């Protein structure tokens, strides 16, 4: 089972955090901090699997991460998940983001955190892998975008919308 999914920047700013087990808000922030600390000081080309930090499970939980340009993608999983499977799932996640945002970059994730969540929702549910087929996920997201367009016809650059 996936316990948590985190995305943060090279500076440790969290742009997405999704916990599939209840943690208090304080603990969530501590986990993010601890994870950043664990991951950020690692060289490139070392192993992408780590034992979990103190807060989230220790030896039973593994931390699987990938580093893309300015962002870290971190999945906390228990022993029932295949490390390489999750490693590839992160890749699928990023490739899907790339398709949905056309050349995704860090700013996309910052400004569209709701969309990122929606993409994640199509892939992972309650901590279990729901769908791994990128085309299927992208199709779902496209449908949502169309729905959104049909529901809102208001121009987005109106002055009233500046706040």
């Amino acid at each position, binding site marked *: 089972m996936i316990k948590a999914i985190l995305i943060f*920047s090279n500076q440790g700013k969290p742009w997405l955090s999704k916990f*599939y087990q*209840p943690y208090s*808000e304080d603990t969530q922030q501590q986990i993010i901090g601890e994870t950043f600390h664990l991951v950020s000081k690692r*060289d490139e080309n*070392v*192993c*992408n*699997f*780590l*034992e979990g930090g103190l807060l989230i499970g220790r*030896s*039973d939980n593994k931390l699987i991460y990938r580093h*893309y*340009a300015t*962002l870290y993608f971190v999945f906390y999983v228990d022993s029932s998940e*295949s*490390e*390489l*499977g999750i*490693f*590839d799932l992160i*890749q*699928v996640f*990023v490739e899907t*983001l*790339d398709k949905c945002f*056309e050349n*995704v*970059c*860090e*700013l*996309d994730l*910052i*400004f*569209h*955190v*709701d969309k990122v*969540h*929606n993409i994640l929702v199509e892939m992972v*549910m*309650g901590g*279990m*892998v*729901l*769908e*791994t*087929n990128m085309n*299927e996920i992208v199709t*779902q997201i496209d*449908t*949502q975008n169309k*729905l*959104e*367009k049909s*529901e809102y016809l208001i121009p*987005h*650059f109106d002055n009233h*919308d500046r*706040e």
Partner: protein
Amino acid sequence: CPLQAASQRTQPLGPSERGADTTAIMPAVSKGDGMRGLAVFISDIRNCKSKEAEIKRINKELANIRSKFKGDKALDGYSKKKYVCKLLFIFLLGHDIDFGHMEAVNLLSSNKYTEKQIGYLFISVLVNSNSELIRLINNAIKNDLASRNPTFMCLALHCIANVGSREMGEAFAADIPRILVAGDSMDSVKQSAALCLLRLYKASPDLVPMGEWTARVVHLLNDQHMGVVTAAVSLITCLCKKNPDDFKTCISLAVSRLSRIVSSASTDLQDYTYYFVPAPWLSVKLLRLLQCYPPPEDAAVKGRLVECLETVLNKAQEPPKSKKVQHSNAKNAILFETISLIIHYDSEPNLLVRACNQLGQFLQHRETNLRYLALESMCTLASSEFSHEAVKTHIDTVINALKTERDVSVRQRAADLLYAMCDRSNAKQIVSEMLRYLETADYAIREEIVLKVAILAEKYAVDYSWYVDTILNLIRIAGDYVSEEVWYRVLQIVTNRDDVQGYAAKTVFEALQAPACHENMVKVGGYILGEFGNLIAGDPRSSPPVQFSLLHSKFHLCSVATRALLLSTYIKFINLFPETKATIQGVLRAGSQLRNADVELQQRAVEYLTLSSVASTDVLATVLEEMPPFPERESSILAKLKRKKGPGAGSALDDGRRDPSSNDINGGVEPTPSTVSTPSPSADLLGLRAAPPPAAPPAPASAGNLLVDVFDGPAAQPSLGPTPEEAFLRFVCKNNGVLFENQLLQIGVKSEFRQNLGRMYLFYGNKTSVQFQNFSPTVVHPGDLQTHILSGVAQPPGSSLVDGGAQVQQVLNIECLRDFLTPPLLSVRFRYGGAPQSLTLKLPVTINKFFQPTEMAAQDFFQRWKQLSLPQQEAQKIFKANHPMDAEVTKAKLLGFGSALLDNVDPNPENFVGAGIIQTKALQVGCLLRLEPNAQAQMYRLTLRTSKEPVSRHLCELLAQQF
């Protein structure tokens, strides 16, 4: 432009092979259909120069949103959505959000998809399961589930799965299976329903009743839609762990699905082909599912599966279909899972050796991830008897990994593997490599390495001087990480082995010469010289005064605990070496000892001084005699390593099956008998063996039943008083009383238990005036409890008569070899007035009889409680009180049950908390219990945590019936 900050943020993440074509400066607002106000707010935050400025901006925004929400003007859905989005963003930055929940809940009932979606998102990120809003949320979910709109249904299912609370389980657990197997559900809905159900089942299994749907879930493995199959496999994997028999049919379905995937061409599965690998995730999940079961029984299924496994191993040797790393990752994900399954089956030597060779290749792979996984897998492979030797051939590579890997997590795996592959043939090499590694090892893993070295050195020691050297080296290299368990253990072993005592004394004496030696060395040295210093006293270089002054030169630098130990060494010296008496008495008499501020030190000084002055040499020699050998039991080091690593950690040594000859020093790691034979002849009464009963009694019909048969034949008599089951239950918390009584016979019991031993006196009273003939009580062992009966019925041998009104006695000596669930049975046969009588009763020997109460402080209790937090270690029961709820009675029962009662541990004084250790010959099981009475509801909640799952459950059941 505010968005121009940090242009590197626009660097594409580059997941694909595309070049680094930099994108526009303002991608965020130019792409997609983002909300302008939200974007402006986010850029404001990003431009904040300081934390204070950020907080100020956020507070301004929160005030703004709050006023909008409270304002008179009704907000349209779009605005609500925007503000909720802002709140989410603020939350993510680590700020508390204490409003907006109601607005989010309102969005749930919107008929606009995007509003509903953002409402659900907010709730799954921000709403706690105990929120008061849960009723409103549940209502919205209910409507969406019933909407027959697949998109809405999926949103609702996601919400249930993400919150996963008990309330939601109660509200929806019954509906989800129906949605899952309904013929008209869309694929996406089925997928979501499967995982939703899985989540609810994990959270509260009692809420998900097994039923007719389970069979149909298994058949989802045949579904056309691969996404549905993937979700279904996850669900089945979880369900079958608790109900393996209900889901057995999944084995053949999983095998045939797997076989179809593995043998398909790389393009057959279209979208589910990932970089030329067909359906890697599904394959991995199927292989995991199969690991829940033993190898298939059906030969055809098994043949097909073995073929699959061979195909995967073969494919690993084929040239890759793509140079992309994703291709090899996906392929290897399947390969590693295949190897896990082969190791799990542990029955195909050919496959095991192939797996080992494959992993051997990976050990030298240039990808760090693969080296890591190979080391990890090989660790489990090392414990298989088929592949242990094959694993050992890689020792040099693994040692090299320990020395050269840049990454600590990989080095850690290498150390684990060395530990697992260690046996007598390579122990010296491995231990010396691990010692060398220890000098540079990361601080985080030093203690674990120390424990491992200590265990290996003990287990594979051929000569004990090597063992002593190794432990002293440990203290020298990593003294801070040598825990009490380790240095206690070396003392135990030296005490128990007289052939190593002289060497140990010499070695510690030499080690203590070092100008700066670790305090643990002083402790070990102090203890050993105090016991065995006489063995080296003949050498003038280590004469008694030299030994004393060497130890005493360290005294002032040591902690209180060490100084206390040294004081004991000194008094032992007075006995060993009378010539040191005056010097030592001088030291004890010094003001710094006699008036020491530390009570322990002062007391020792005063008492030792007096003892040395008043006691005669003989008395002194008796009091200060060499310590007796320590009882052999499980190595406390091994126990500690297991605690550190969770259950199964010490597995390489646990079973000891590879090296049965290795138990010469440590009784603790010798192979534990996995089954104890229960020869029934030994249960015969000695007194009766000479005169077997005329008719061989048939075996009891069903060993598990309490009262198999009471007095068949015409003279059958019902029992008096409590039913036998009730009587048996009463004995759970007491040791003496009447076990059975009817018109003819009364059976009384008196028993006592100490550690894993017990003695039980059975009294058979003939209540009639007529003699019983062929009276033959025997004990039958349905389970693992072996009982030896030392004395027979107290009557002349050869006779089996009980006169009218007489009582005969039988003594049973009981030894608990390992934990057990079923009690032994007492079978009594005799003839009364010519009619054969027989009855079978459960003997009141339950596992709790072997409890040893353990006192501990609250802090220790909670620490242990936390250590036993795996779900299978806990058993809990909530039940109605059957007797008046009297605290004193409860206390007496808990004490009778055998555990210690701990005061001032539970914050609620009404609750009872207890701790104890179940002593069996093979192992000890630590138990913690907590009983929470609720007088108002007349209910109890009982929680048991032990290190063994069946024990937790069994104790919980036994004890729950007492109140």
